[in-house]
């Protein structure tokens, strides 16, 4: 059975890098005595894949990995057994059975991600230190631009890109807190740091990623048809095993 596990990552363990988070779950799965399928070959390892790596220092209440189990288990049992083996800040929220096809993999499905970004109070640029209603107005005009061009780094290159089509939602929630729903995935992956930076630049200031507290709320797949977007959390695409 292929299972998709949803978990949180908050507190001090936000400093654990992606590879070490994976190692952490490999050990937790062993401790929980959940029978994971091992790869063939000289050094057998667990077959697991994470939907979308979370950067060091960011927190999340919606992370996912897919894992191959040797036998079927109920969702409840997987969640309970794993939660008995977690550290502070990591909680397993759900476990669902997913399809076996390559197209069913979380990594392939990722289409969007939802973030809450808080600017550290002592790092707030003066251009963003505005009354709530003014800030709402600025966001509206920011989004009304035909394009939002900004220097964007990818693994291979750095180039000026129009990120406007990848911003699905962007709003101000008060107390230096912004909400963004952004395109995610292997092709059009937009980080929330860049959106805030673009907004700061638009206001005539600037801001660095280190000045932001970033929390990922969830990761979504797109089940819409005919070019219409319909974002659903990744665990909605699986089946709860009773």
């Amino acid at each position: 059975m292929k299972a998709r596990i949803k978990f949180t990552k908050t507190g001090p363990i936000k400093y654990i890098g992606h590879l070490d988070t994976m190692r952490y779950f490999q050990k937790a799965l062993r401790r929980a005595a959940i029978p994971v399928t091992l790869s063939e070959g000289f050094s057998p390892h667990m077959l697991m894949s994470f939907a979308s790596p979370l950067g060091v220092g960011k927190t999340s209440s919606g992370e996912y990995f897919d894992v191959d189990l040797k036998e079927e288990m109920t969702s409840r049992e997987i969640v309970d057994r794993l939660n008995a083996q977690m550290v502070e800040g990591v909680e397993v929220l759900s476990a669902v059975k997913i399809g076996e096809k390559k197209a069913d993999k979380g990594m392939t499905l990722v289409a969007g991600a939802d973030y809450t970004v808080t600017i550290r109070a002592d790092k707030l640029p003066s251009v963003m230190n505005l009354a709530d209603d003014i800030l709402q107005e600025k966001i509206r005009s920011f989004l009304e631009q035909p394009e939002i061009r900004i220097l964007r780094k990818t693994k291979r290159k750095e180039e000026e890109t129009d990120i406007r089509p990848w911003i699905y939602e962007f709003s101000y929630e008060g107390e230096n807190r912004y909400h963004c729903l952004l395109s995610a995935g292997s092709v059009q992956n937009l980080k929330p740091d860049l959106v805030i930076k673009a907004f700061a630049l638009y206001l005539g200031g600037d801001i660095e990623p280190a000045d932001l507290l970033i929390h990922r709320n969830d990761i979504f797949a797109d089940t819409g048809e005919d070019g219409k977007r319909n974002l659903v959390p990744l665990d909605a695409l699986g089946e709860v095993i009773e």
Partner: protein
Amino acid sequence: MKLDKPERYIGHEFNAVMKDPESVDIRFVMCFPDVYEIGMSHLGIQILYDLFNKMPDVWCERVYSPWPDLDKVMREQHIPLFSLESQRPVRDADFLGITLQYEMSYTNVLQILDLSGIPLHSTDRTGDDPIVIGGGPCAYNPEPIAEFFDLFYIGEGEVAYPALLDLYREFRDKKKSREEFLIEAGKLPGIYVPRYYEAAYNEDGTLASFAPTISGLPEKIAKQIVMDFNGIPYPEAPIVPYLKAAQDRVVLEIQRGCIRGCRFCQAGMIYRPLREKELDLLTERAKRMLENTGYEEISLSSLSSSDYADLDGLLNYLISICREKGINISLPSLRIDAFSLDVMSKVQDVKKSSLTFAPEAGTQHMRDVINKGITEEDILNGAGQAFEGGWNKVKLYFMLGLPTETEDDVKGIAHLCQKVAERYYEIPKEKRVGKISITASSSFFVPKPFTPFQWAPMDKEQDFLDKAHIVKDEVRRMENQKSIRYTYHDAQISVLEGVLARGDRRVGAAIEAAYRNGALFDSWTEFFKAENWQNAFAETGIDPYFYTARERSTEELLPWDFLDCGVTKRFLIREWERAKEGVVTPNCRQMCQGCGSLRYHGGVCYEGKN
């Protein structure tokens, strides 16, 4: 602030112990003075962490050396060093315990104190500072770092700590001073209070006398060891780091001590007598530890695993529980013989990684001098069997600069490599797996206290390098030279290690000066800067060669002679004489060597005598 691997400093690992600081009586911060990934791999700290945290009113936490990037930030922003569990300042703890595993970590000890805001010298500390206590193998010559510690503990940690903590509690409740506590602690078995001992020197610089300055403190301090070896607690739920530590596996201690009696080996002397753990205890424990950690590998810990009486039984059990779960078994410190190879092929299955042999020396003469107890035939037979079993990569470890070494012995390293290569090509071509690859590496011999070589002169840097070049040239003359890669250690670091290993109390000033000059992480070749130390010796008027290059007379009072490490000086002198004659001494199971460990009434000395 951008730090490399912030995971080093956050704690919160699985199985880390959290307690309420307000509800505990004693906060003990345990330190391994090197980077987290190294320190977390150390079994001794895991043992003490477990032992202390089982006491309800004690909270044992950890701290490791901040990497130079964090070190810089802490100094610039005046952030005091904090422990991983509570993230509170180390200085607020009751005890700071520092394990001394290698001499090159001494400047890191000063970094820990300095960043904690604890005065470097014991005599400058007040009631607001924790009691700084050192332990581990380097505590067997604590003198070079004596001034930086309030106490040293000589021996195995499991034994005397409960009494020390009880005494601390009692004295604190009675509002006694720090000094009163230290003096009383110095009367406990195995505890040494350096500030109440004084050294005097002869005109030639050698030690004239060494004695306590306060009545009631012992002249001689005896090591404390565990004799109920099956009964002591063991960390069955060790901390599981997020970062990949050097030891990323379950470590199962199967025995302590060694029967072999290699004359260069300090561990082989100070952990005597050999004590084994019962098979049933180990199998149960292995299973529980794997369940409690989720590790995908288990390793046996001991000085010479092949000497464990029922290794076969233990491995068969481990194989039975590990195979289907895809858990690896790793077996360090095996002697290369038919039995070990059989064992290795059992546990390693198809994966033929490289094999490691430690002949230590290139000629029989030299191996007899160091009492290595293996012949060239053993080595070549072992290699031959390994090659027939499908291995084609061999690592060979040697030492250069051993006592009585001649040019022939030095060249012998190259010759032995060649013979190993030839043994490979004796195998029919169709059975060989490609070419043979031999990596020979030599370290430079550093004489250690409480070994038969504690009186031996040590080579200087240039002697070491000359010898290494002789080996290199000789390797080039060998027929199979293309299959042999030769590397050697840093000669400057080795000489410095020699000074710190056999130094006296005066060397402390140079360590402090080196630290002030910027020395830190000296065991890391990328950080080691010889000038820091050269300048330190010049500033403090210390001649490093006085401590390394000089042959000591067996009459000389040695800086560590006030410690009783369990083996007698008479035994060490006898072994030193036999070494110079090239006479081999049999191992403990063949014949009692009369080392003095009989007095512990247990272990290998009493095997089959119950």
